[in-house]
């Protein structure tokens, strides 16, 4: 904890905007620029932007790229049949535990872009390189610390992006959801971590400040990690290190849908272990039916046994406390349970995720 925090290429922008900064995964990052609740609403109602340069973009290229990735990831890149198409996957260890979750874009059969989490980037590089060595695959892996990354999210995000960065307007407007495109050293993906439409932009670090300022000038609101967390929670999106880690399988983390077992001939790291470990828990949503805020690691009592919250916060869009809960398999959405909130049992209702979709409450 004594190493100085790393700085993203946009650090000066955050300080100039008066952001409250925090050390996140070893990086000095903005938590908010005044009010995380206001920033949350900006994303749901217009457009907000996040500096996500602490995450790491990886280029994986080579003639063996596709078979290599089919052997590395729990989701199957063979299902990406059009250039630029992306998917969300977990990367498992041989016990079926989750090493990281990531988005991967297939630009060509021999050319992929991956984006991994900040806190796991070093571990991921070691893991993937080790697997390249073990398999002898003809692939090259390159970490792209030369890039900055900005996520622009919200119903007006794509429109304002095109206005701010007109040289990218045509390419970005043509992108279908969950597709990406590379233009020189710039990369645009129509992906995000908020449940809203939007784009994720990767560009040379030297160009980042100008892009950020251009976006701000069109009215895109700078948003910090606080809003990022309430948005992804409402959208039912897992956070690595909280909702899952190496000690749990994707099946116990609400991520069975990201494990593609259809090709029985496809062997991938962790597949054999998953076959021996069917789900023992389910991950569902929780809405608190009393004043208070849900947080991680709160004990839950149900008719079928005990569980625990994995993530929690206050939902600005619903104006209630919400959480993800790892629960016994028998628990169903609609049930009432009790949560220990700072020593007091409070009533909560189990719901299916997500809590909010396309700006509208689902619960």
């Amino acid at each position, binding site marked *: 904890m004594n190493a100085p925090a790393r700085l993203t290429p946009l650090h000066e922008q955050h300080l100039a905007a008066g952001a*409250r900064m925090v050390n996140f995964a070893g990086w000095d990052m903005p*938590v*908010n620029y005044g*009010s*995380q*609740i206001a920033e949350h609403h900006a994303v749901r109602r217009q457009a907000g932007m996040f500096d996500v340069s602490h995450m790491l973009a990886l280029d994986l290229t080579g003639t063996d790229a596709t078979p290599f990735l089919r052997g590395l990831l729990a989701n199957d890149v063979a299902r990406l049949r059009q250039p630029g198409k992306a998917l969300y996957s977990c990367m498992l260890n041989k016990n079926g535990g989750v090493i990281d979750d990531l988005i991967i874009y297939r630009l060509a059969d021999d050319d992929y872009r991956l984006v991994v989490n900040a806190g796991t980037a070093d571990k991921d590089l070691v893991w993937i390189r080790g697997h390249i060595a073990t398999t002898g695959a003809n692939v090259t892996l390159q970490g792209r610390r030369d890039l900055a990354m900005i996520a622009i999210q919200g119903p007006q995000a794509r429109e304002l992006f095109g206005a701010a960065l007109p040289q990218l307007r045509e390419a970005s407007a043509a992108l279908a959801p969950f597709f990406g495109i590379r233009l020189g050293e710039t990369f645009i993906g129509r992906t995000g971590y908020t449940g809203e439409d939007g784009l994720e932009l990767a560009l040379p670090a030297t160009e980042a400040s100008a892009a950020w300022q251009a976006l701000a000038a069109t009215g895109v609101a700078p948003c910090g990690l*606080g809003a990022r967390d*309430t948005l992804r929670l409402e959208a039912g999106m897992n956070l690595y290190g909280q909702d899952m880690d190496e000690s749990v399988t994707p099946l116990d983390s609400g991520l069975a849908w990201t494990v593609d077992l259809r090709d029985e001939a496809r062997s991938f790291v962790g597949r054999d272990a998953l076959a021996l470990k069917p789900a023992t828990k389910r991950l569902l949503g929780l809405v608190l039916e009393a*004043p*208070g*805020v849900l947080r991680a690691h709160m004990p839950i009592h149900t008719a079928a046994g005990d569980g625990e919250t994995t993530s929690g*916060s*206050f939902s600005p869009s619903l104006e209630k406390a919400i959480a993800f809960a790892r629960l016994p398999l028998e628990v169903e959405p609609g049930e009432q349970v009790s949560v220990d909130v*700072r020593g007091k049992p409070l009533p909560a209702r189990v719901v299916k995720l997500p809590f909010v979709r396309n700006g509208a409450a689902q619960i």
Partner: protein
Amino acid sequence: MSKLPDNLKYAASHEWVRSEADGTLTIGITDHAQEALGDVVFLELPEVGRKVATGESCAVIESVKAASDIYAPVSGEIIANNSDAVDAPESVNSDAYATWLFKIRPDDPAQLGKLMDAAGYSASIAE
């Protein structure tokens, strides 16, 4: 930069205290505290009539980030709490010194002397 009213006293635990003409005390939390907490979403305030001891946790302020206890700066009896603040907890963020939380009738007015003045509190939060 936190603005620190001169007419208030301050506790190390970031409560501000205003002496009223009738000898009662009005209590809230400082601008420094609200900024550290982030967006406030719930307040649990002490019931009228409750007796509190100096330093006793008697209220809870819950922000998106964390729940924090608020401590009685002096011993006495709670004579009022601010239900308007409970209905609009974000007012603590928008103006911490204008948003009172509860009022105490102190057992011993001399206890006020143990609290900091603006300069003392300012020095204590400076880094």
